[in-house]
């Protein structure tokens, strides 16, 4: 492969990785926020986010014949997914985690795994009732087109991008825009509002926050609501990006997103975003390692094909936990007796 072909190829692999990374970043926020307030890995978050994906699928399916603007459909899908996933997350916390607060740490963790399994089968059951298992997104016309195609009004932009080798679809751009908007809103809510301040206080020290008049149970519910709503957004984005989801497909992205949260420093919101973006790129690069291997004549690299990109995140997780357990942007804390 020649350099003139290789360079745009690598650029596209990295851009694709960044787009994927935004999806992981938004999922990771759900893990990191819950971990921030409860020190619990919410294993059920992967199902909360797949619920969002399923809701998004249903909205697009119901609206497939309407003449409504595609962006409006997307907005409805996003809002519906946010509401349902958010409420689901609050419900899970209320029914499964709250009664166990104060138990040894293993107990809520095992509960979270159980909730995750239950939700998987409930989702499969609900879709199975209508005879569906793999849900293929019915996207509005044009979402799969090239971004700024030659005949559109923004053709100069598109041409300029293609000239440097960037070739993306419209849905990828939508995905990044939606992610950025969600991040901005989240940043505002957490850092600028009274509720955000209370959530931060609870995550720092629940007892002292309580003494300062913060209703910690309410704030934990609010955290689960926000985390679930973000999960809903990421579910729709996941469906947009991959096209097909099913009730069991939340597991892999869930693990990768959790890794992203740890990589960035668990409990840290910018860290989750950074970790997500990094992992998206890493995963895409591992997927094409065999091409580099063939290029450089390294036969051993040639055998690393796309199926290994699944274990890339785990290796990253092991390495990061061994060498920098606090993550890239996390604060270190020393355990005291």
């Amino acid at each position, binding site marked *: 492969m020649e350099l003139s072909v290789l360079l745009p190829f690598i650029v596209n692999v990295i851009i694709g990785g960044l787009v994927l990374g935004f999806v992981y970043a938004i999922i990771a926020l759900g893990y990191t926020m819950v971990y921030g307030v409860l020190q619990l*890995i919410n294993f059920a978050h992967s199902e909360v986010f797949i619920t969002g994906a399923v809701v998004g699928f249903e909205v697009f399916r119901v609206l497939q014949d309407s003449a409504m603007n595609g962006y409006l459909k997307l907005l409805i899908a996003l809002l519906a997914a946010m509401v349902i996933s958010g409420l689901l997350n609050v419900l899970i916390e209320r029914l499964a985690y709250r009664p166990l607060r104060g138990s*040894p740490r293993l107990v809520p963790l095992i509960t979270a795994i159980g909730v995750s399994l239950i939700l998987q089968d409930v989702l499969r059951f609900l879709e199975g009732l209508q005879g569906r298992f793999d849900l293929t997104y019915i996207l509005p016309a044009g979402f799969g087109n090239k971004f700024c195609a030659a005949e559109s009004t923004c053709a100069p932009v598109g041409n300029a991008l293609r000239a440097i080798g960037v070739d993306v679809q419209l849905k990828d751009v939508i995905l990044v825009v939606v992610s950025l908007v969600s991040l901005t809103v989240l940043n505002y809510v957490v850092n600028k509002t009274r509720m955000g301040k209370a959530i931060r206080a609870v995550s720092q020290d629940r007892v002292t926050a309580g003494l300062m008049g913060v209703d910690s149970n309410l704030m934990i519910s609010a955290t689960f609501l926000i985390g679930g709503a973000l999960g809903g957004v990421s579910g729709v984005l996941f469906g947009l990006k991959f096209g097909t989801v099913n009730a069991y497909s939340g597991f892999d992205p869930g693990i990768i997103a959790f890794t992203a949260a740890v990589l960035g420093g668990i409990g*840290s919101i910018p860290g989750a975003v950074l970790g997500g973006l990094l992992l998206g790129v890493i995963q895409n690069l591992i997927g094409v390692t065999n091409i580099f291997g063939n290029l450089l004549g390294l036969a051993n690299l040639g055998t690393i094909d796309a199926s290994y990109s699944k274990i890339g995140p785990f290796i990253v997780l*092991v390495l990061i936990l061994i060498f920098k357990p606090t993550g890239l942007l996390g604060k270190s804390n020393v355990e005291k007796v």
Partner: protein
Amino acid sequence: MTVANANPPKPAVRRPLVKPDRTALLVAFFVVTSVLLLISHAPDVMRNLGPFGDVLRNKVVEALIVSLFLANVLFAYLWKAANWAKLLVGAGSLLVVLPWAGRTDTSLLDLSIQIMIFAALALGLNIVVGLAGLLDLGYVAFFAVGAYTWSIFASPRFGEVLKYYGSNPGTTGSGTLAIGLVLTAVTAGSMIFIRSLHGRIAPTRASNLSFLIAGFGLLSGIILVGRSILVLFAGSAEAVANGINPGFFWLFLALSIMTAALVGVLIGLPVLKLKGDYLAIITLGLGEVIRVLANNLSLYTAGSQGITPIGSASVPWFNGLAGALGFRPDQFYLLFLYVLVLAVIALILLVNVRLDKSRIGRAWVAIRDDEIAAQAMGVPLMQTKLIAFATGASFAGVMGMIFAAKQTFISPESFNLLQSITVLSMVVLGGMGSFSGVILGAAVVTLLNLRILPGLGEASANVSWIPQEVNPANFNRFIFGSILVAMMLLRPEGLLPNKRVARELHHEDDQEDESGDGNASGLEAGGDVYSAGFATTKEDDKTGGDR
């Protein structure tokens, strides 16, 4: 974290001090369930029973009968009865009645072997999760290691591997073997030396690093040796075209234990420093890594097609014995595996009980209760955790090998995450830390998995208005999830609780009437200690916050 009143007080578990003697009841129960089991697994008798026979043939009913029968053993363990009765019921049901019923219906033997394999897995995971308090979600990886250790050698795969190395020797030869051996010996020697040095002086950064480097040297030495041996023996590929001599079965029984324990140590070394939740997710990840590797190293594992046929031991004297007892030749092998599994699980149980009462067992419990306190009392954390990991792994390894020999086919899909979760739900259902509990949990969950759910599935398949997607046989995730959640919410100590765990989990209610026993505390590091109306938080509960 929160005030103690958030949890409504639960009544403490209290048992009457004097148990009634139930010898007669036990023997009567044994006789009744044995007759039921024998009838329900004798097709000839059932044909004469008419509609009643049809009821007995139903899978769900069969599962109920089998579980009633297995309850014998449980009751013999739990009830107060004369020792002769306990011995009669325990040995009689497992050694006489069950094989006898299996004579006319081999699926019963198959089911019992499955139950015992899972019981061994649950016992192994119980050491890791129940005793040492380390949540391992990738436990099935060790099962896979044991299974593949035997399968690769005892199947046509081994011939294929040799053929591949015969046609691609590269630069490997007898010289490579010599280099590899020297490298292995030197690095192993230096590792032992550094280890002994660490016994006398405090480990420094440099010595730790050299230990690590020597470890890598050892690994590459072993790879070199392995590769050159494969190349040098490539000529005998034809001789092992159908796998190695079955006589090696016994050797591999030991090898699979060692390999699984070694993998346990290798996985444990980097990850056991981590705290509970991180450990859970990383073991989950490494379990997946092993599955992906099994899928991709297709030269050795045949990838997703799976390895088949896998050979197994041939035991002439046992076949003669079984023949004399009236078993058909096609049943010999299953009966042999049944006896083997029974012996192995008895051994595992013995090891478990002895370990639990030993110094190392107490160290595990100490680590589970409070890591820092245990360390302060002189428990070597890493070493103790590694032993827990390796012990648990070795049980899974030996059972993995027997599983492969029984199934004669394995593929990476036999070792997915759901299997790990299944074993975990057995441990949680029965009671973490309680040996009788996890065996009970294994029996219940396996029966549910192999008989009750498929039975319900068959029943619902005949009902036209139930769509196929709603088939109860597909609801195993839901059921395992419900087991986990329900047990954690309602009875976290399990069905047959370990006394110590139960007291710890009901610490708050016990506080007033607890006397002379000051060692009850949180189940593991990070658990909070409560006094009425006031809670303390620990420093490590703080995180970086959401900034």
